[in-house]
């Protein structure tokens, strides 16, 4: 059977090889969790890179980009953040990052909705960028093993196909690739009269097939997310509470729901924030791998907004010499931080000093302080005793007293660490968050 293609498509095919990095498998469909060993470091880093892609997509959508623009954007985002020289590595990262993010984004309805929406969009445009052959293989995988229309048959019904295209507001020049499908397999298209029917078969355009594929994909991921959530809640979360759980929980704060406008502002973290933040980490003296788990569990929420976390890994890598130059800076003390004056769009500073009351309350709530302790902390803040407030937060969050008081973020951190270690060794767990 011949596949009807236009000259344009043949040329595009020759030039492409994109999407799955040109790998034979093309686009993964994420049906089955991979049986791979993943380093903890990769666990988070891969996820963060994919998150960059998804957020870029969210941004593009919120700006109302047209499909052609989105296609271009997806291609660029993928290339920038996910591509590896070795296609096998790219595929690896692709699959791992998707499954990590599933863990992260399965946990609430809002998170699931966002993730589903972005992953589906990503898939849609990656599918469009695939070669025709690859697309047909994917169609089979989604149980849409449609036969392309032979040229002679196409010619016979071309006028009718054109007519249908015009009724649904498309141009009269009909697409060149059509599939003949039993009508009962495309009920949505039949119901809206968006296809030409003849003798029990629907004549489905390639663009419509994309919709079908994407719909299936979306359906599969949606179900998977619900299952993942169940598994997470019932077993994984507890099992992994010292290892993956803190990472997962922190990663989800890296994006705060469908708040696109906030996201748009925070595409870059200003210098002040990066410095304060990055230096702290270095001062903590933690190796990259260890820093991830513990730091994320405690300090990130204290320092403030979710936006911080977005740059976290990048900054870490930068500070550990993985990116750009190295400069030997000393981590800032509380005094220095408190005296900073963050401007519009800045995200450094001391949260007790620089956060508005509402935001601070929210942040403190997230850390597990509430009721009486929260009011006491807020009271200290009103009276400008920021470090005292921080100390009290520490005490409330950890359930232990801090006699020395907090005067350096790194100190908060190391004290936190001590407490956590002690907790792990304790037979009973303290009541915390």
């Amino acid at each position, binding site marked *: 059977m011949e596949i009807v293609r236009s000259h344009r498509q043949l040329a595009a095919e020759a030039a492409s090889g994109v999407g799955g990095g040109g790998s034979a498998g093309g686009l993964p469909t994420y049906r089955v969790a991979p049986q791979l060993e993943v380093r903890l470091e990769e666990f988070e880093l891969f996820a963060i890179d994919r998150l960059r892609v998804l957020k870029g997509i969210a941004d593009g959508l919120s700006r109302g980009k047209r499909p052609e623009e989105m296609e271009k954007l997806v291609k660029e985002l993928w290339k920038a953040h996910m591509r590896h020289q070795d296609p096998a590595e790219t595929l690896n990262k692709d699959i791992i990052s998707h499954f990590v993010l599933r863990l992260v984004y399965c946990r609430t309805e809002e998170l699931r909705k966002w993730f589903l929406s972005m992953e589906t969009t990503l898939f849609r445009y990656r599918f469009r960028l695939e070669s025709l052959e690859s697309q047909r293989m994917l169609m089979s995988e989604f149980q849409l093993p449609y036969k392309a229309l032979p040229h002679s048959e196409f010619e016979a019904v071309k006028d*009718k196909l054109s*007519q*249908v295209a*015009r*009724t*649904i*507001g498309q141009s009269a020049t009909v697409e060149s690739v059509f599939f003949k499908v039993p*009508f*009962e397999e495309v*009920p*949505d298209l*039949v*119901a*809206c*009269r968006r296809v*030409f*029917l*003849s*003798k*029990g*078969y629907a004549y489905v355009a390639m663009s419509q097939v994309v919709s079908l594929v994407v719909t299936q994909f979306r359906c599969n991921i949606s179900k998977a997310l619900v299952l993942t959530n169940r598994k997470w809640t019932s077993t994984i979360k507890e099992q992994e509470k010292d290892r993956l759980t803190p990472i997962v929980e922190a990663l989800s704060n890296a994006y705060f729901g469908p708040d696109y406008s906030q996201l748009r502002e925070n595409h870059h973290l200003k210098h002040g924030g990066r410095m304060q933040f990055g230096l702290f980490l270095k001062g903590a003296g933690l190796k990259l791998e260890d820093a991830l788990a513990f730091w994320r569990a405690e300090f990130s929420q204290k320092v403030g907004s979710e936006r911080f976390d977005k740059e976290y890994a990048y900054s870490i890598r930068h500070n550990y010499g993985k990116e750009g130059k190295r400069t030997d800076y000393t981590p800032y003390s509380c005094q220095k931080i408190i005296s900073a004056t963050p401007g519009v769009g800045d995200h450094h500073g001391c949260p007790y000093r620089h956060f508005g009351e509402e935001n601070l309350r929210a942040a403190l709530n997230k850390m597990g302080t509430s009721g009486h302790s929260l009011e006491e902390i807020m009271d200290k803040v009103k009276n400008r005793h920021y470090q005292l407030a921080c100390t009290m937060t520490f005490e409330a969050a950890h359930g232990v007293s801090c006699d020395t008081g907090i005067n350096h973020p790194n100190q908060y951190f190391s004290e936190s660490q001590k407490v956590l270690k002690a907790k792990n060794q304790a037979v009973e767990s303290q009541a915390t968050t």
Partner: protein
Amino acid sequence: MPREDESVEAMEIDGQHQQAAITAVPDGFNVDYLRIYYGKLFPYGDFFKWLSYGNDGKHPGCDQSYVGRREFSFTLENDIYLRFQSFDSVSEMESSIKEKCPFKIDIGPPAKRHAYAQSGNNVFVPVERELIFDIDISDYDDVRYCCSGADVCMDCWPLMTIAIKILDASLRDDFGFNHILWVYSGRRGVHCWACYPPFRLNNEQRAAIADYFRVYKGGENAMKKVSLTGHVLHPFLARAYTNVLKCFFEDKLLLSQQLFASEERYQKILDLIPDENVASELHNKWQGNRRSSISKEDANATRWEQLKSTLQSGKHKGLRRCIEEIVFSYSYPRLDMEVSKHMNHLLKAPFCIHPKTGRVCVPIDPDNCDDFDPTTVPTLSQDIVSATIAESLQGGIRKLIQCKAPAVQEYLDLVKFTVTFQLFLPA
């Protein structure tokens, strides 16, 4: 109760006597006649053959349990309703119907398990089912002026005829159905049974087909119930318009319903025009020549032409589709969506007698549906009389055809309907 049966049997085949005898028989529906009907005339064999879909034979592919899993429901005298009736053989069905003498028989879908096992709270799981449609002329009450409600006459019945034509053509040409049975509902509508082996269309697929056919979106509040968007019509709608609706509307409906004859009536049409200026322009024009000497007939055709040329003129580009919308509003088939969407809907069986009219629910041949006249469909009493007369004739079918007696002709009509049914049966 007078003993008509005796007098009938004693009758000779003689024109005069026959006529007298027929007028003596009361028309309409009664139980005794029904009993005789079930005794002599109901086509059990063909009926059972239909619903077996080839499973009644002896060949290896047969599923012997198939017919037994089909649900029937009987409505008896005094509105007693029996569900989950099922029959494993034609003789079982025949004796049950003869014994119970149901006023109405409904056919449901075959289920996973035997129908009689489903009574009570068990979940009834339909496995598969014909695609069915129910079109009722009372749904067109807003566009027919000759009758309303349960009444029907030959001025409005053609709306059903064109519904049959459009849907039958589409079911065959677009969806590939080969075995389609159209049945007169006995009073004011038609039913359609489209058999698509192995007809495992689920509810979603059925709904899709019903939506494909749907154009008229009714509702009390919507002024404009037909909206045809797009630069051109979908091939299915275009075909319906060009082949059936346009000429039906212009040649038949305009006149039979006098659509422009009064201000109230033409205002209804003008209300479908989205441009108020155009609508009032036409309104004023027609109001103006109310008292002219143009005959009613001319008025309808003339005004329609005027409306068309106004809308088609260059200055009203956006209104071109409006003409089709008006035609569709008034004549395009209006389906009962719920009947078609759900697999477990029970629909009245062909060859039942309608309790209110006494008429037989006869099949309609879609290729000759123009000839179908609901007012001349055999009634129960006529059937009994004619059948009895025909039976007593010697010489078989040839003698029957030669005999000019009206009663015999009526009997032959009934036979014709049975033949239509047989032609429909899947081989």
